[in-house]
């Protein structure tokens, strides 16, 4: 039987991790979901939570990686993918 759900792991780094108080969580999505769907679901789950809106509203500064490669919100997701959200980098 074909599974119609996928589970992805989600990571937050730096100021996002601190703001949201979470570094890692698992999210169940419909098969065929893209990263924008994941963002929507995270926002729904955190209903009325300004902090989550703050992170996901910052379109210019929000960076996204899927399986450790930078990507856009329209990237399709597969079972077991690792999606990371983080602010612009400040190393060196």
């Amino acid at each position: 039987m074909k599974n119609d759900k996928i589970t992805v792991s989600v990571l937050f780094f730096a100021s996002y991790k601190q703001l949201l108080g979470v570094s890692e969580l698992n999210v169940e999505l419909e098969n065929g979901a893209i990263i924008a769907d994941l963002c929507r679901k995270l926002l729904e789950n955190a209903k009325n939570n300004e902090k989550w809106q703050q992170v996901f509203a910052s379109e210019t500064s929000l960076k996204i990686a899927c399986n450790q490669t930078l990507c856009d919100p329209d990237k399709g997701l597969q079972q077991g993918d690792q999606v990371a959200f983080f602010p612009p980098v400040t190393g060196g």
Partner: protein
Amino acid sequence: MKQTEIHLNPVYLAITDKALDLAHFNRMVQQQQGEYGASVIFTGSVRVSSAEKHLVAMSLEHYPGMTETLLQQIIDKAVKRWQLGRVVVVHRVGYLKPGEPIVFVATAALHRREAFEAAEYIMDYLKTDATFWKQEHYRINGVTKDVWVEAKQSDQQRLKRWQQKD
């Protein structure tokens, strides 16, 4: 064991939560240099703060796995672009005090221009691409304040220099 690795591989890349042993990394770049007589060594350290804003420490975190891949990609591009006898890139993570080294980038080349350019290229891309984040810890009138460092637009601007030449 690490030293054996160096003889075989001209590239050394490390991310560590231990204090950087600069003398050790200097030797790595300058020993057995052969015909690669020009070496450039860059060290970036935590600033010792001015009086009004007293920086007591800095925390550095990164995305394990992704950071190493990104740094390796930057080094690979530098190695394609310039003939380099050695490249050493070491980045510190964890809790750092003012004056402690954060990053060490060194290149050895046949001539100084290549060594300077490659070191600068690696640092410029490390600043904009590598998944590290800094948080500064200040002490102001006896109260501790934690501030995430903001990315600088000027760092993005610097990349244009390399992109024009591509």
